[in-house]
């Protein structure tokens, strides 16, 4: 094993062409999944939860899969997005768009701060710093119980309708309607994220992931790129957090816990680091597994531990890596899927 990074989208020309075709394919696949999810699953609420976590995993993937930054800080943005949007709705009477916008903006601002601090350190110190900041955010939320409800969580979070003035245009009271809202937001974010990762900006991120010194020597201000990807990731994660609060009508303290960061990371990795579609797969697999197993076998998290180890050691590409190498083999592509999916 010589790869130094979480390597899935290797950049050989053949692979790149293939990736182009696969890229368009996955956008279509993603849209198909959006439509099918609520039909196939027992409840629209479950489908909504999958997409919310897919959003968070996608944002995590931008940091981990595309830039090589392992951050335990995602819970800060997820929790802050949930709390701040809920507080804006409860105390400031903010509407749907207002609440979501406030969440995104505060996520971006927080991520700007966290990113600027954390990227001053590299490697293990970077990881430790994100861990310390998440713990601080948790204890802060715990201490400010007048605002956050502390251990009991923030109760009675509304799910406001889309309204102009006093007239309600669309109510999201029904699970299916709310699913449609979350699905459209996810689709929008997915397409935008895809455009970003396919752009020169995205290629520079990959360059930083592969070899930061070299990218920096080529004249890229790698710090600026890392901060920008933090802001992007923070904004998306906060949006996911805000939607999660609206889904549950409740913001539990666990939203801002280190465990939430771990959960998002595990979804990202098991789905496939470096693949946006993989994030949807990872979140889907884990949320579904949890829903199916938690009542019959409460210790199902054991499987996540095993899967995490297996993915890191044997199948670096995660679910997406496995799936795409299968697809590649069936298409008779000349590239060697084994090697490229990180099996080296």
């Amino acid at each position, binding site marked *: 094993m010589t790869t130094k990074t*979480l390597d899935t989208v290797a950049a050989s020309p053949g692979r790149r062409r293939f990736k182009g075709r696969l890229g368009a394919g996955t956008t279509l696949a993603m849209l198909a999944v959006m439509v099918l999810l609520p039909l196939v699953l027992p409840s629209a609420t479950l489908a909504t939860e999958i997409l919310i976590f897919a959003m968070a995993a996608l944002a995590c993937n931008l940091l981990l899969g595309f830039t090589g930054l392992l951050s335990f800080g995602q819970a800060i943005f997820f929790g802050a997005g949930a709390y701040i949007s809920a507080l804006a709705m409860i105390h400031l009477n903010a509407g749907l768009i207002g609440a979501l916008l406030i969440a995104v903006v505060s996520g971006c601002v927080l991520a700007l701060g966290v990113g600027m601090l954390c990227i*001053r350190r590299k490697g293990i110190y970077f990881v430790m*710093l994100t861990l*310390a900041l998440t713990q*601080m955010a948790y204890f802060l939320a715990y201490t400010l119980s007048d605002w956050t409800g502390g251990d009991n969580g923030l109760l009675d979070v509304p799910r406001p309708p889309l309204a102009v003035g006093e007239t309600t245009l669309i109510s999201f009271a029904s699970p299916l309607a709310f699913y449609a809202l979350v699905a459209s937001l996810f689709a929008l974010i997915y397409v935008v994220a895809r455009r970003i990762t396919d752009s020169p900006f995205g290629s520079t991120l990959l360059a930083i992931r592969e070899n930061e010194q070299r990218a920096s020597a080529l004249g890229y201000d790698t710090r600026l790129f890392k901060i920008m990807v933090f802001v992007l990731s923070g904004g998306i994660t906060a949006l996911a957090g805000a939607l999660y609060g609206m889904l549950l009508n409740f913001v539990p303290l666990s939203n801002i816990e*280190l465990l939430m960061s771990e959960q998002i990371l595990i979804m990202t990795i098991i789905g496939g680091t470096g693949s946006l579609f993989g994030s949807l797969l990872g979140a889907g697999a884990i949320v579904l597994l949890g829903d199916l197993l938690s009542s019959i076998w409460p210790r199902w998290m054991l499987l996540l*531990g095993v899967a995490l180890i297996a993915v*890191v050691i044997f199948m670096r590409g995660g679910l997406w890596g496995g799936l795409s190498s299968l697809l590649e083999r069936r298409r008779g592509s000349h590239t060697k899927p084994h090697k490229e999916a990180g099996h080296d």
Partner: protein
Amino acid sequence: MLNVYLFQILNGLGLGMIYFLISVGLTLIFGLLNFVNFAHGAFFLVGSYLCYTLVSLTGNFWLALIAGPLLVALLAWALERSLIQRIYHLPHTFQILVTLGIALIIQELSIMIWGPVGKSIPTPEALQGVVRIGNFAYPYYRLFLIGFSALVAVVLWLLLERTRFGALVRAGSESTEMVSLLGSNIFRLFSITFALGVGLAGLAGVLSAPLRGAHPFIGPEVLGLAFVVVVIGGMGSFTGALVAGLIVGVVQSLMTSLWPQGASLMIYAAMAVVILLRPHGLFGRA
């Protein structure tokens, strides 16, 4: 009033020694093996539960005190041989993820074995009651905890500074290649050090069990605190782990009566500040 502070400071020293035992293992493993062990807190958990099982089976705390850490070390040794040895060469990111997986597995297995509700462990009979000096009273067990862990610290220091094994560990922390070139079996050294470091976390788990019991979800909290201590003391530093462990323990103990959440907030803020301003900590090598 003064007695209250003395009481809290002594409690803090005990807590600090527990933190030291946990973190010195983490720091030893990081120093020699350059390996980041996110499963360290989970082994503390196993230590506490083994203490519970051994005490309830035999009724003998002293047996648990010896056998508990040894069993944890044995478990660590087996894990090192079968899995961890394969990931030393991987970047820290992967080590963190694999050990995170191990921590999750250990936690869930512990719940399967010992149930989701915490267990309490009685204070050993010989150490029940309190010591009285004037009008100041202090529990025997807590004094024993401070004394015993201080003894362990001294033995560990002697082991690292005065023995061939210690010399190899210290040399290996400088350059594993050199030690290996000079003809020492570096992989055996790695296995022993890993088992020793994790065994110390197990010992901390056993020692704290009569005070705090065994709880299935304590792992992440313990891990977080161990990282605070290791970072403040300096990664890889024995003295750092001791000094920072005691500082964190005493500060936390004194703040507990005033503002408990504030204590944790402050400790993690201190960790962040140390990483930003002085990444090598109080005693780490630059």
